Every structure is written in structure tokens, then in C-alpha cells.
């Protein structure tokens, strides 16, 4: 969880990491909307990147940097002060059945949004022979209860213009989330509780779902970014459940109503769950409604311990290619298994990531896009969880620059390992991370996410209050050491999706490549 706000992609391809149901889809005017100078992919720069002129008084000496991606004239009248901000306090309470309640009051607008996290009901808990069962269960919970049919649920929600989603993706937890005008809050919680506690999984709805999902699974294999993400997670996580980013057709075919009923019974338990609400509501109201609607959610006899195993370390670097006939771009994801969210290296890796690829300030963006013009965007991301997550860099480039783009991307990783970052670049990255906290004060949902991160990973109560202090303490030596450890050449997994007749051969010059088709079938690479 970083406080950095990413640019919202206007038409970014949807990568279905989780099976979820969007109940209300507000369609924004869009037929002619093209898009933005920057998009979901964001990114970084270059080695000898000398930047200067933080303040106006020091501008003249570095009007040129070695990359053409960025030239700082240093004349912009920026304030050097970083606004001190105070995060609002949340109220917390616990119901007798163990359900934790967090409330962030925000009465600016008459609406609320909530998230109910149910640890133990996510995709990691899929039975070994039924990958995707957690996701199927979550999606189908909305499809009927003893008192409401699927259509009645949809109508009841949508007449309020409310949303209600249940999802369980590649993580230990399922999430029930929703939003509405505050005048409808009690009605929405009533409906959410019915869906959460009494799903009936009607046979007819299961059959419809299987039919519909068959098409969706076929559809996503047309998307290059999906194919890359699927291959990358398998490369980095191996047999670990984090390797699965979606269900398989075979598991869908085997799905039976009884499996859903049993998964729901065994995994949707209140004692480790949290209900977080932000908006026009008080703790008193929230508790009353939660006790009335969720007080009867039965606590298990014994507390359910949940272990998230660590993925096996990946000891060797490998290159994977997915042949996508007709592709006019080559899609890259390059990265490695990294750290868990509670690792002492977390803040260091966040700062390193910011410098390498955290947005348009990052080296990858400035180098691959602003200097070379290979791509519309290039960025990197740190995904740290209960277990070791991953760090990855990604970009889409035109097919004929497949080889130089990969060389430049790998060169950036070599640079961050071998050359200490510049003082100014480090100061800018830290400043960006800390100063952007002010923007989260406009967004109750973002503030709630900070609180949920703290709750989920059992971070200290003053974790966010001390965030700036920890970020400021990160040194260039620590960054280089972290890069050498986590971005070491022999840990890197390189995943490439592109046209098999044009993008494969340049890769084979760099080393051995395992070749797959778009259905995930291995193809003999030697022919």
C-alpha cells in the first residue's frame, strides 16, 4: 500500500485478477474518449540521471541531464515545504461474535462506502483439486438467498443506485464491498448481510454462471497483459496459490452446488473479519446496524488459525515467451520474488521502486518512453503481502524494438544494482511519496485503505504517523543493497508476450527461452 496515487487509466485493459460481480455499472460517456498522455503503466529513467535544482536558487548548473527524457531548468516556483498533515482518527469496536468494526466519519457528502474483509475465504484457500472455488463461491453468493432471487437482489440494489460486490481473488481474503447514498445505508447492509450469511446457490444460477464464465475465460486469453500476468505469476510463485490469477476451464466444468455450499460454510467466519465503513455515518449507527444484521453470524467453536505459506524461493533466472499471433506489440513483465509486507526492507524497496518505475518520474518511463519513444508507458510495482510477494517492471513496446527495449529495461536494473542513486533523485522520490499524503485527505476510501493495511498486517498503531520519518531515513546504500539482493540477475523472471514470428527470435539471442501458446501449452522451443 503506497500513498502514491496512480494515474487512472482511461481505457486500460481490464485484467481479471479476481472474479467479481459489478452490480451497478455506471457507464461514463466514452465513445470518443481517447485518452491520456499517461496511463496505467507508469515509469522510470536512467542511470547517469543527474538531477538538480530542487530549489530555484540552485538551478543553473544542471540544465542538462544525460537522458533526454528530462531536463530541469529549475525555474518553477515550488514551495520547499512539505505540508504537515494529520490523518483523521478512526473509531473501532468489536461485536460479541468477534467481528471488528472500523468507522471513518466523513459527513461532507450523504453517502457511504464499506468493505467487509473475510480472511480465510480467499483464493489461497481453494482446495488443491478445485482452483477457483473461492472465486466461484464469492461471485455466486449474490445469486440468491432463501428470500431473494438473483433478479430481486439486482433490482433492490440498483433502484438505490447502490453497489454490492463479493470477490475472492489471488489472496487469503474474500471481500464484500458496497456503496450507497447514506439514506439507503441500512437497506444496503441488510442486503449485504443476507448475501453474506444466507446464500442459497440455486442450481439454475450455477448453470447460468458456468455458461457465462466459459465465455469470459475465453475472452481474457485474447488480452496480452492477462497472458503476461498469468505466466509471470506462475514463474514467480510456482506451486504457491499466489500463482493462480484466475480459474481454469476444467475447474469450472467440475463445479457443483455442494462445493459452493461447503466452501461458504467452512470459510465465511466472523472471528477474523473486519467491517470498515467510511462516509456519512457514526460509530453508533454502524454498531447498531452491524449488530442487528451481522450479530447472528455464528462464531466458530474454536478460533480458526490461518497460515499463509511462503512460496518456494525461485533460485534461477528464466525467460518465458507466450506466442500471440497477430500481436503488434511485445509485452514484458520482468521481476522476482521479493518481500512480505512486514519485512524490514519494505520502506527501502518502496523508495527504490519509486526511483526505478513508480510513475512518470521513474527511470523506466523517462528512459523507455520520454527518451527512446519505444512505448506509451513503462513502470514497476512492489506487491508485498502476508507472504513474500514480488517486484516487477512492465511495459508494452512495438514489435520491432523488442530486443533493444528489453536490453534497456535490464540495463536499468543493472544500474540500480551497481550505481548509487543521486542525492537529488533520492530526495525527489521521498518528497513525492510523503507530500502526496495530503491528497489522500480528499478520499475517505483511500484513508480507509490505509487503516485496513495496518489492520491486515498487524502494523503498529502509529505506523502511518511515522511513515514520513521512516521514508526520510532510507539511504542510497540501503537502496543499492536491496536492489542487489532482490533484483539480482539470477533471480529475475523474464516474461514476454508477442508475435511468434517476430518477437521470439530476438529473445533467443539473449538466452534459452521456454515457449508457450496463448492457451498456456508448452511448445517445443528447439524446432
Amino acid at each position: 500500500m503506497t500513498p502514491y496515487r496512480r494515474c487512472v487509466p482511461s481505457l486500460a485493459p481490464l485484467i481479471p485478477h479476481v472474479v467479481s460481480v459489478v452490480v451497478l455499472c455506471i457507464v461514463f460517456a466514452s465513445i470518443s474518449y481517447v485518452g491520456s498522455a499517461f496511463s496505467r503503466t507508469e515509469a522510470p529513467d536512467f542511470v547517469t540521471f543527474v538531477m538538480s535544482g530542487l530549489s530555484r536558487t540552485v538551478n543553473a548548473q544542471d540544465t542538462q541531464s544525460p537522458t533526454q527524457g528530462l531536463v530541469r531548468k529549475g525555474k518553477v516556483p515550488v514551495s520547499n515545504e512539505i505540508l504537515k498533515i494529520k490523518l483523521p482518527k478512526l473509531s473501532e469496536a468489536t461485536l460479541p461474535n468477534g467481528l471488528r468494526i472500523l468507522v471513518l466519519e466523513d459527513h461532507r457528502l450523504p453517502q457511504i462506502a464499506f468493505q467487509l474483509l473475510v480472511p480465510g475465504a480467499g483464493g489461497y484457500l481453494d482446495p488443491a483439486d478445485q482452483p477457483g472455488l473461492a472465486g466461484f463461491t464469492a461471485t455466486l453468493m449474490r445469486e440468491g438467498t432463501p428470500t431473494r432471487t438473483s433478479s430481486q437482489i439486482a433490482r433492490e440494489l440498483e433502484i438505490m443506485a447502490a453497489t454490492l460486490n463479493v470477490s475472492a481473488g489471488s489472496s487469503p481474503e474474500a471481500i464484500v464491498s458496497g456503496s450507497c447514498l447514506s439514506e439507503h445505508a441500512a437497506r444496503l447492509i441488510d442486503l449485504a448481510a443476507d448475501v453474506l450469511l444466507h446464500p442459497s446457490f440455486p442450481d439454475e444460477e450455477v448453470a447460468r454462471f458456468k455458461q457465462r464464465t466459459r465465455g469470459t475465460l475465453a475472452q481474457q486469453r485474447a488480452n496480452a497483459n492477462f497472458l503476461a500476468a498469468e505466466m509471470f505469476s506462475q514463474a514467480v510463485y510456482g506451486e504457491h496459490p499466489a500463482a493462480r490469477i484466475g480459474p481454469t476451464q476444467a475447474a469450472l466444468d467440475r463445479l457443483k452446488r455442494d462445493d459452493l455450499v461447503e466452501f461458504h460454510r467452512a470459510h465465511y467466519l466472523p472471528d477474523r473479519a473486519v467491517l470498515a465503513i467510511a462516509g456519512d455515518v457514526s460509530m453508533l449507527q454502524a454498531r447498531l446496524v452491524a449488530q442487528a444484521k451481522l450479530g447472528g453470524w455464528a462464531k466458530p467453536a474454536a478460533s480458526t488459525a490461518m497460515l499463509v505459506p511462503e512460496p518456494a524461493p525461485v533460485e534461477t533466472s528464466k525467460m518465458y515467451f507466450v506466442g500471440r499471433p497477430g500481436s503488434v506489440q511485445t509485452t514484458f513483465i520482468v521481476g522476482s520474488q521479493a518481500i512480505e509486507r512486514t519485512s524490514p526492507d519494505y520502506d527501502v524497496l518502496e523508495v527504490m521502486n519509486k526511483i526505478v518505475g513508480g510513475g512518470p518520474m521513474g527511470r523506466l518511463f523517462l528512459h523507455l518512453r520520454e527518451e527512446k519513444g519505444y512505448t506509451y508507458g513503462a513502470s514497476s510495482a512492489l506487491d508485498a503481502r502476508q507472504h513474500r510477494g514480488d517486484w516487477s517492471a512492465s511495459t508494452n513496446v512495438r514489435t520491432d524494438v523488442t530486443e533493444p527495449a528489453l536490453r534497456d529495461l535490464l540495463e536499468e536494473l543493472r544500474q540500480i544494482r551497481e550505481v548509487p542513486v543521486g542525492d537529488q533523485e533520492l530526495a525527489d522520490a521521498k518528497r513525492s511519496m510523503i507530500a502526496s499524503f495530503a491528497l489522500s485527505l480528499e478520499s475517505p476510501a483511500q484513508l480507509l485503505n490505509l487503516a485496513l493495511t495496518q489492520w491486515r498486517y498487524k502494523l503498529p498503531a502509529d505506523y502511518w504517523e511515522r511513515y514520513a520519518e521512516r521514508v526520510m531515513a532510507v539511504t542510497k546504500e540501503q537502496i543499492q543493497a536491496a536492489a542487489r539482493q532482490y533484483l539480482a540477475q539470477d533471480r529475475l523472471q523474464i516474461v514476454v508476450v508477442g508475435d511468434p514470428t517476430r518477437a521470439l527470435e530476438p529473445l533467443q539471442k539473449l538466452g534459452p527461452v521456454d515457449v508457450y501458446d496463448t492457451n498456456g501449452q508448452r511448445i517445443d522451443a528447439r524446432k
Partner: protein
Amino acid sequence: MVRAAIHRLFPAAVIAALTGASLAAVTAPTVKFTDTKLNNGLRVIISEDHVAPVFSVVLVYNVGSRDERIGRTGFAHLFEHMMFKGSDNVGPGEHFYTIFANGGTMNGTTNKERTVYFETMPANQLDAALFLEADRMRSLAIIKENLDNQRNAVQEERRLRLDNQPYGRADEAMDELAFDNFAYKHSVIGSMSDLNAASVEDVAAFFKTYYAPNNAIIAIAGDVNSAATLERVRRHFESIPSQPSPPAVEIGQPAQDKERRLTVDDPLARLARIDIGYRIPSSLSADNDTFDVLTEILAGGRSGRFYEHIVREKQLALSVRAFAGNSRGPRLLGIEATLAPGTALDKLEEAIYSDIDGVKAGPIADAEIEKARNVTRRRFMGSLATSLSLARTMAEDALYYGDPGRINTRWERLSKFSAADVQRVAREYLIPGNRTVVITQPRPAGGAATGGAR
């Protein structure tokens, strides 16, 4: 004090809801703002609100792909990229680097009608944001090297969004076939060959004509002082000279007389898709809100008629969407449906027309109208939720409707939605002779194809 005003209003809204009083009884919230025209023609809208230590600046230039000429499609959007490559006092990349390095966020976006630039920053950086926007309006660096670099980035954007995506060609094919007016017929992203043809001279002429202060609106919302901010805007912008007005855009086109139809082969798609576009009047028409209600009734969520009948009951499609974009000229009410595996395209198309006929024949339930009202209310909340959404809404309303305060009349307008109006516009515009149909058929790529679902 925008959000504070709404807070005071809220108890009244709750009481109204609890007692079943009609929506019209609710007092509409009022967004306070100032609206000033500088001597050089720049329109300045400021809305002060101290709820968070943050402000947003939005600049809307009245230029979009509709202003492009033949042989230069994609130019307005390519130009948007040039706006980040530097000006007299700002180096290439320094604009966005400065904003992000100081905790802000920014972007730019282009459509047929307009180009928008925006940034949100911590409250102490207002001067930096105004300086950056003014410097590029005054003195954009127009050199070939920057143009070539961003031409590449834009061509990759085209590949990323269109050429490398399943169904990437469908929207473009629809506009080309449905419109007879050049301004609206071509895509915003433009053709690869036109992007290649763009020259430095084109950039310079375009800049002078369209990026003049008299062709722009600036809106600032958030934690600012209105009077002091207006003074700062004057200091940064008022000395930028105005230019003669750009040529008016020809928006007329002959009436359509019969259905148009096209099939596109797509090697990347795995399932067929049908896109249907009906010509409807511009966003400035009195029926603008009614088209939003119509699309909500047809395609709003899972209780919309398309989902209920076509996706759920008949299982002919994976999804069916409907939408009407904003346009001061020609536009379409678009419908887009992805065929479910193993079903027939003609059955899907028939089912869509059958639901449209259902709206025309009636009845429309009160619940459907109430749903459309609540959706509009929540969208309205959304436009007030952040300084950026408020500034964008006001700036764009000023451009489209000449009225930045239009946000304040939305509640009144939405209380007037009626079933009869919805049926009237459906009967008038959603007719066979007024539609264009584009079918995308998956076509396996050459020898290396590996199969998969059809």
C-alpha cells in the same frame, strides 16, 4: 464551502426520504464559485473549499479532433503530448516531474470536442501549478526532436489501446461508417500515416490558433482563497496575447436514410461482437438528460432490460452496454454486445431490437425512472467528491453549455425525467433507418494460430 453546504442540506434529504416526500422537496445544494473573464479572453472559474489541504487546476482548451483537417487526423491528441515537452522556462518532462515530485498528480486527455489538462497538488503549490500551465500556454517549445519522440509514444498508445486489443477497430469503424461529417467521422487517436505526416509547422500553427487564452477556460477548486487566486491567475496569464478566434467547426451532415452495416475481421478476438450506433441530437439538445435515462433503462446494471433479458434469460451475450457520449455536434447512442459462445449473432441482434421496441411500446415502470434518478444523484455526488472532479465538471460545463453553474441545476432537472419523454426519443431516434451496425468476427491469425474458443 461547497461540501459544508451539502452537509447542512443533508438532514433535510434524510427526512424527505424517511417520510416519503418527493425528491423535488429537497433543496438543491449550491456550489459557490466566481466566474471572471480576463482581458485576453481567458475565462477563470474559482471555487473555494477548505475541506482538505489540496487544490486542483483544470485547463480546458476548446480544441479536439473535430478541429482537425483532412490528412492530419490524430493531431489534437499528438499535440496534447507535446504540451509536456517543455516551454521557455520549463524543460522537457519537467512539467510532470515537478508535479509528481511535489506530491501531486496530473494528466491530460483529448476527445473529439476538447483537450483537458489537470493537476491536483498540496495546497502550498498553487504558484507552481499556475506557472507550469501559463508557461506552456505562452511559450511551448516546438522542435522536431520532441515531435518525433511523442509521435512514437502516441503510435504506441494507438497500438496499446486499439491495434493490439481485441475489438480495437470497432469504435473507429463505427464512427467512420455512421457519420458523414469529417469532423466527427475520424478517430481521436488518428491514423498511423497521418501521425507520420504531422510536421513542426503544423504544430506551430495549431498552437497559435487553438492554445490562445481566448480559446481556454481555467477552473481552480479546493483549498485556495478566491480573491488572491484570481490575482495570481492574472499575474501568470493575463499578459499572454489573445488570437483571432479559430474557424468554426462544420458540424452539419445529411440525414441518414437507411441502415448501414459492416463486418470487420479481428485476428485477436475470440468471440464475435456487435456494435450498434443510432444517430441522436447533440448534448446541447433539450433531450440530453432523457438519453441518459434511456440508456439506464436499457443497460443500467443487472436490473437493466438488456442484462435481464439477453444476458440472463436468453444467455445470448456475455454483456450488453449502452452509452451516449458528450458532443456539441453529431453523436451516437451506442450499444455494444459480446456474443456468448455457441449462440447466433442474428438472434442476439434481434433480442436487442426487441428490447428497444419494448421501451417504445411501454410501459416503463416507476422503479426504472427512480433508478435513473438515483444513478444521477450518485453521479452528482461523485462530481462533488474531490476538487478535481468539481473543477473538471465546472470547466467542461462552461465549455459545452456556457454555464459553469449548471451543476447547481442538476437536481431540478433530474426531478423532471418522465417515461413519456423516454418513449418519445426512443420512437424518434432508435429506428432502423437511423442506425449503423458493425460486426466484429474473430478470424484466426495465420499458420501459427493455436485454436481456442470461437
